[in-house]
């Protein structure tokens, strides 16, 4: 049942991407991106990764869509150029995709308890996480406590992105003689 749901979602995602690549109207492209993100979030729920699904739904389908629409309001909604299809990018993308599929053949089976990921520190997080941190949600315990330093790095990345945007767009406004 679960694999059927995931397969249907994957087929829908493939359809969305195919239509996306062929669409020239940028507004439709943004909407398709949003649909793709929602399908991805649903697939994550089917895989029991609720935290990731939540992030995907809020960032991928929510904020990104709004930001892309805001960017779209500054330019025309029809993709310029186009012309003949170029085959080199398609061939490159297909080759990379096939190589990635070939790479997945070497991975351990899905949810295999003996996979290297599950035999290193994951066991300790699951067995002792609640006793050591008092937090029932292991994802939060790992993110905020065990891997707190990594999360500090992530927050700094987001902070830098915000500061970068401020630095870029503020200067433009001052140069244009706005305020």
């Amino acid at each position: 049942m679960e694999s059927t749901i995931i397969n249907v979602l994957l087929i829908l995602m493939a359809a969305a991407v195919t239509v996306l690549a062929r669409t020239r109207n940028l507004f439709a492209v943004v909407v398709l991106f949003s649909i793709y993100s929602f399908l991805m979030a649903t697939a994550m729920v089917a895989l029991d990764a609720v935290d990731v699904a939540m992030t995907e739904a809020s960032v991928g389908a929510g904020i990104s869509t709004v930001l892309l629409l805001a960017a779209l309001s500054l330019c025309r909604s029809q993709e310029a150029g186009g012309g003949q299809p170029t085959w080199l990018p398609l061939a490159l993308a297909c080759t990379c995709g096939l190589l990635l599929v070939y790479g997945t053949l070497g991975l351990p089976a899905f949810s295999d308890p003996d996979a290297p990921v599950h035999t290193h520190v994951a066991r300790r997080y699951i067995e002792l996480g609640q006793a050591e941190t008092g937090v029932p949600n292991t994802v939060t315990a790992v993110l905020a406590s065990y891997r707190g330093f990594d999360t500090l790095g992530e927050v700094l990345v987001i902070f830098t992105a915000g500061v970068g945007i401020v630095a870029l767009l503020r200067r433009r406004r001052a140069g244009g003689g706005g305020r």
Partner: protein
Amino acid sequence: MKSYLILRVVAKLLIPFVLMFALYVQFHGDYGPGGGFQAGVILAAGIIFYALIYGLADARRIAPDWVVELLLAAGVLLYAGVGVAGILLGGNFLDYFVLAADPVRGQLRGILLVEAGVGMTVCGVMLKIFYMFAGRGEAQR
């Protein structure tokens, strides 16, 4: 979009729940799915929704630029501050065990503060990016 009556009414009905849900995700992240990152994005999404319906000027009155910029920086400072507090109390950087007399309580306190920092920064950055993008469009018109 100020003239669309249905959108305005629906937005007015929905936004309180969006903001409430953001707080729930923030503070219930220890027990269920969610955490600072998701909560920050949902909070920002609620305010961006308001800005889309009622206009950027009205949204800027609710969440002024200085508040957004303060949030953006204060989150990182709070997170790093928890780390430094760990050092000052005799532990390592980002060591939550020393934040309270009972180690598990210390962990809970540290995680709560750190998640709050993440939420503040994410919310601030998302809102700031939206304000910058949307503000440019309005300046050109």
